[in-house]
């Protein structure tokens, strides 16, 4: 086979997903540093963007594909990949509008699984691996990260209790910047690879490169640039929820949270689990609220996030399946173009909605009045 127009569409859509992945996840690394004023907001997102770029090039072992082991890649077509990406992008944009830090990885996996289901049926999905490698680790990782962050916070405050507040804050701001940088680096390494994997999969499916090929250099470069640019744009709505909404954070807590995140993400990927950075970071921030005496944790905000997490896989899958259904109903490249038009319309509407209550570097740290956090609704397909 081989349809280069369709392939180009898939590549552009994959890079768009990578971009939303970047700006959705800026907060995982930088929300705490922004909330405690360790870094000015715009410096924080620029630093994170650069480190994501570096991180994307750092790892020498580019992951095969995100889909291998989860779906039967022999049944995947370009249209399936495109529809899966549409599901991932839609969910990322919707949760960003609502200011909910949800997992970009789950959105992508969900989208691809949904479109594969629609295209080939239930036997094409490896359900056991989906649970063992994605869903169960996703449930455990925020708990582990939260425990580590709570313990770290408790230790830090015990050890540093004799310091004056100003001396303590000054010292820990430096530690905070260092640990947040590690999270940014790890994010670039982990998440940029997911899109590289998807594009490589599309190239293989299209017969452009042999099935055993690893990601070509232009794929690595373009994915690195897309995620870095997305990070630099700063998903201010998500940053605000993570930095101000969950817990009121001081800089020692910020350092504890980012250290716990970096440790859990790097260790897990060492053991072969590609976790959601978002789940880990959220768990850590919650943990650091639990670990400091007198800190108040807004459990209702946390509950809303957890609800959104439960919906991420099925909702993205529903959009992915719907997109595949529409594309195959119309058929051929025209079907994919119809999907694309719909996706652009959805993205435009969400962007327009976001401009009505803009959140940016200037108001990201405004007092939390329960505002940028509406009800978590499962996405309509």
């Amino acid at each position, binding site marked *: 086979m081989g349809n280069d127009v369709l392939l180009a569409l898939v590549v552009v859509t994959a890079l768009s997903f990578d971009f939303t992945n970047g700006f959705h996840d800026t907060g995982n690394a930088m929300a705490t540093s922004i909330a405690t004023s360790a870094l000015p907001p715009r410096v924080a997102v620029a630093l994170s963007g650069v480190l994501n770029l570096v*991180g994307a090039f*750092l*790892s*020498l*072992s580019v992951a095969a594909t995100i889909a291998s082991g989860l779906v039967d890649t022999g049944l995947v077509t370009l249209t399936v990949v495109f529809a899966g990406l549409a599901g991932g992008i839609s969910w990322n944009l919707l949760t960003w509008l609502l200011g909910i830090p949800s997992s970009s990885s789950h959105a992508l996996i969900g989208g691809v699984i949904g479109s594969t289901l629609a295209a080939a049926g239930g036997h094409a999905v490896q359900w*056991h*691996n989906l*649970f*063992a*490698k994605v869903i*169960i680790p996703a449930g*455990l990782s925020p708990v*582990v*990260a939260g*425990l*580590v*962050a709570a*313990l*770290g916070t408790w*230790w*830090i405050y015990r*050890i*540093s209790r*004799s*310091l*004056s507040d100003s*001396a*303590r804050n000054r*010292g*820990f701001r430096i*530690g905070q910047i*260092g*640990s947040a940088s*590690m999270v940014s*680096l*790890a994010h670039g*390494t982990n998440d940029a690879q997911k899109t590289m994997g998807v594009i490589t999969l599309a190239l293989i499916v299209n017969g452009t490169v042999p099935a055993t090929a690893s990601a070509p250099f232009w794929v690595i470069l373009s994915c690195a640039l897309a995620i870095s640019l997305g990070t630099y744009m700063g998903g201010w709505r998500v940053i605000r929820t993570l930095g101000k909404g969950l817990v009121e954070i001081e800089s*020692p807590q910020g*350092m*504890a949270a980012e*250290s*716990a*995140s*970096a*440790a*859990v993400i*790097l*260790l*897990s*990927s*060492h*053991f*072969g*689990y590609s976790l959601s950075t978002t789940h880990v970071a959220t768990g850590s921030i919650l943990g650091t609220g639990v670990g400091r005496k007198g800190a108040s944790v807004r459990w209702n905000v946390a509950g809303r996030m957890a609800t959104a997490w439960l919906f991420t896989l099925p909702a993205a899958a529903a959009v992915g399946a719907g997109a595949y259904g529409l594309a195959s109903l119309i058929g051929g490249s025209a079907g994919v173009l119809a999907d694309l038009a719909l996706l652009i319309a959805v993205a435009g509407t969400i962007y327009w909605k976001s401009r009505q209550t803009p959140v940016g570097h200037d108001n990201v740290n405004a007092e939390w009045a329960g505002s940028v956090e509406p009800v978590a609704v499962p996405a309509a397909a």
Partner: protein
Amino acid sequence: MSAPAPAAPWVDWTALWQIIVLAVVAGAALPALFAAGLRALRPGGRRAAAAGPDGSTAVTAGLAGIGVAGLCFAVVLAAAGWGIYAIVSGA
């Protein structure tokens, strides 16, 4: 270490407890060490400032304090460097 076999178990308990132990060391003990370093730089701190009977407030660290602090920060930096090395060498 334990390469996930095709028929992976639902939960890899060996990997889980190793991740927990190592994450406590790297994610909680290291920041605690950083805190210890900060404290070594400012012996007494708030308490000395409050309870200086002759008006002297010993806020600066002695040579030993600076040495301890330097050691703490060096260990933290070394661990961060090792983490970056782990990323580069392919986790």
